[in-house]
């Protein structure tokens, strides 16, 4: 079996792909670079990589379209989207993203490498037979009925599970680690993007919004993640009056 993990990079701008490809190779991944969606799609049909780093805004075929075609042809690939527009992120939210992740440009290279690693590990786990319950070395975090598998980056309740992006996983874990304790937006963002010097506090709100939606899908109690006005967020335990 081919031991090398293959990561594909799709972006129309060479100044962006060059340093990323360099770093990915440095990190030990076999890296392929494509500069438009069509050539990437053609190549992926032949031989799908283990993971794709995909720019959303591209000529000919944009990232979302490429993703849609891959999915419609039954090619399941973990994807990390790169985006430079708020609007694109919003469109991603409407898109059924599964456990995929995204990063806003400009991103930290270390952050990108961390996410590539996390996503590969998670999809590797998802491919393994059975669930990851016995596999993880870390005891899963539990909040009420909710179980957070940090290894697999999924959230479970009553045998159902939803995948989490790395950002969501980090935020949820940070809140779940100390239930009832308030985390400010900037603390949460610092947890979610440890490699980034600058993060926008208000972006925390949209991540929280998505987390709430995912917990809702699992049928969790509403308002599990509570807004504390003017201060931040905290996670609520069932029956916890605080």
């Amino acid at each position: 079996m081919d031991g090398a993990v293959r990561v594909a990079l799709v972006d129309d701008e060479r100044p962006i792909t060059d340093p990323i490809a360099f770093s990915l190779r440095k990190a030990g991944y076999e890296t392929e670079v494509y500069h438009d969606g069509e050539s990437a799609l053609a190549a992926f049909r032949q031989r799908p990589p283990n993971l794709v780093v995909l720019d959303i805004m591209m000529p000919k075929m944009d990232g979302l379209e490429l993703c849609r075609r891959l999915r419609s042809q039954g090619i399941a690939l973990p994807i990390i989207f790169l985006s430079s527009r708020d609007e694109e992120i919003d469109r991603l939210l409407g898109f059924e993203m599964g456990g995929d992740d995204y990063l806003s440009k400009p991103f930290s290279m270390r952050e990108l490498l961390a996410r590539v690693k996390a996503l590969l590990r998670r999809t590797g786990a998802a491919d393994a037979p059975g669930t990851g319950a016995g596999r993880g070395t870390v005891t899963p975090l539990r909040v009420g009925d909710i179980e957070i598998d940090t290894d697999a980056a999924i959230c479970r309740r009553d045998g159902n599970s939803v995948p989490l992006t790395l950002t969501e996983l980090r935020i949820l874990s940070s809140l779940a680690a100390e239930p009832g304790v308030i985390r400010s937006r900037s603390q949460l963002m610092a947890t979610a993007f440890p490699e980034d010097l600058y993060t926008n506090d208000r972006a925390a709100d949209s991540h929280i919004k998505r987390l709430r939606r995912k917990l809702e899908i699992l049928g969790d109690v509403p308002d599990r993640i509570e807004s504390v006005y003017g201060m931040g967020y905290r996670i609520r335990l069932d029956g916890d009056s605080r």
Partner: protein
Amino acid sequence: MRRLSFRLLIFNVLLIFLPIGSFLYLDTFETQLLEKLERAMVQEGRVMASALSGRDLEAEALRIMANLAGRVESRIRVVDVEGRLLADSAVDSLASAADTNTQTGDPRISSIQSWTEGSARDELLYQIVVPPVRRAVDVLSPPQPALPSAEYYSGETLLSGPEIDAALAGRYGAATRVSTGGQRSVTLYSAIPVIAADGSVRGAVLVSRSTFRILGDLYSLRLDIIRIFAFSVTAAVVLSILLSLTITRPLRKLRDRTELLLLPGSNLHEAVRTGYPSLRRRDEIGDLSRSLQELWQRLESRITLIDDFSADILHEVKNPLAAIRSSAEVVATELGESVPSAGAPAAELAPFIDTILRETDRINRLLGELREITQIDTHLEWEEREPVAIAPLLRELAELYGRRGESRTTATSASEGAGVAPVTVSAAIDPAVEEVALSVNRDRLRQVLGNLLDNALDFARAAIRIESGPGRGMQDRIEIAIEDDGPGVPPQETERIFHRFYSGRSERAGHDGLGLAVCRAIIEGYGGTIRAENTPEGGARFILVLPTTAIP
């Protein structure tokens, strides 16, 4: 629009005052009629006088009277040289009773009945309009000598009025006397001498006739004019209302729609997107509505253009930024790994790499803020507003920032003396403020206050003070002040720090540019003001003045 309707009505009503003017014309008409009447009387008199000359005056006069048998409208009397009454058509004819009636009875009522078929409504109409007009004319015209009554010759056998005297003297004599019975008509008297063949005056013919018939005619005329006037007024009012409906109503519709845009706190985006009502009219108002609609569409496309433009700019700049950052990180990593072999170069270069990374982050942050500031108006319009009780919010913030101040570890402050020492945060809230709320978006207000407090936390030496009280000299306003004991703002810069990309205090990371500009945009979006000044101790004080609303 109401003013326009009113103006239309006024013009229309003014137009129908023309018939009123014709009333005045009627007076002239009356004079002409009277002149004609007098001329006819004189003719009658002359004919009579000519017929009588050279015969037996009395016998001939009586014969002619009998022949006339009241078939003339005038009353004809014949007097001899002494003025003695020889013959009188009112007495000597069969129709004398009727003639007498026209002269001395109360002919008005009977005549009105005969001329106007006795319409009480017409009479009322007449009485409403004519007497005031008459009175006005009487007031305006010079006073006239009172006329003697037409009873002048009543029962006399020796007629010696001035006109008779004149006629007996061989001249034409005329007199006017007021008709009896309280009516406004007068009786005209014309006396013509009867001159014999030898040229001597043998007597006189006195022709008299009441002007009542003329007045009767005039009455009918006036009544017609009044009727026309009444119809005209009604028509004018109806026309004005119709005009008002067809002109001012659509105009008002256009105005209302436009004013919707101008209302403070109205949703500009929403209003522009819902479009402008085009009126399917072919007139100028329709044209106006179509022009406005086009203007509206251009406004919309311009707004969309600006939105898209800022999004595009962001996108276009973020891509190269990502490339720079990634490349710099790669270089940093490589330098870090190739450590000591080459000795110093890596360590020497490291700060420059850091600068590249830090500055790309700064550009990125500024881009985000720039996007925020260009969209702040739109966002403020979209966001829900609710009454926010301000006193509890300020206390909460004081507590939150008090905790942050205790553990302040930021080394970002550029002000000497400030820095890592703990900072206390106190709040002094006037009882009057407890009663009020602000109609704002909670998170936005918190963003502004948080921004100012973050600022203060970076500059303060040891203390931050939050104050709030009723707005000075302004009802329904409150003032919120946040002050620190740091180095303050240079006095000449207190306005400029709110400008975009003001860099006076930019030595501190994270404080260049747009934070205060965003604060100002938000506060002004809520109809408030924000300004900066320095405390007597030299620290900076930021003062917000915001309109209040009642606590629900």
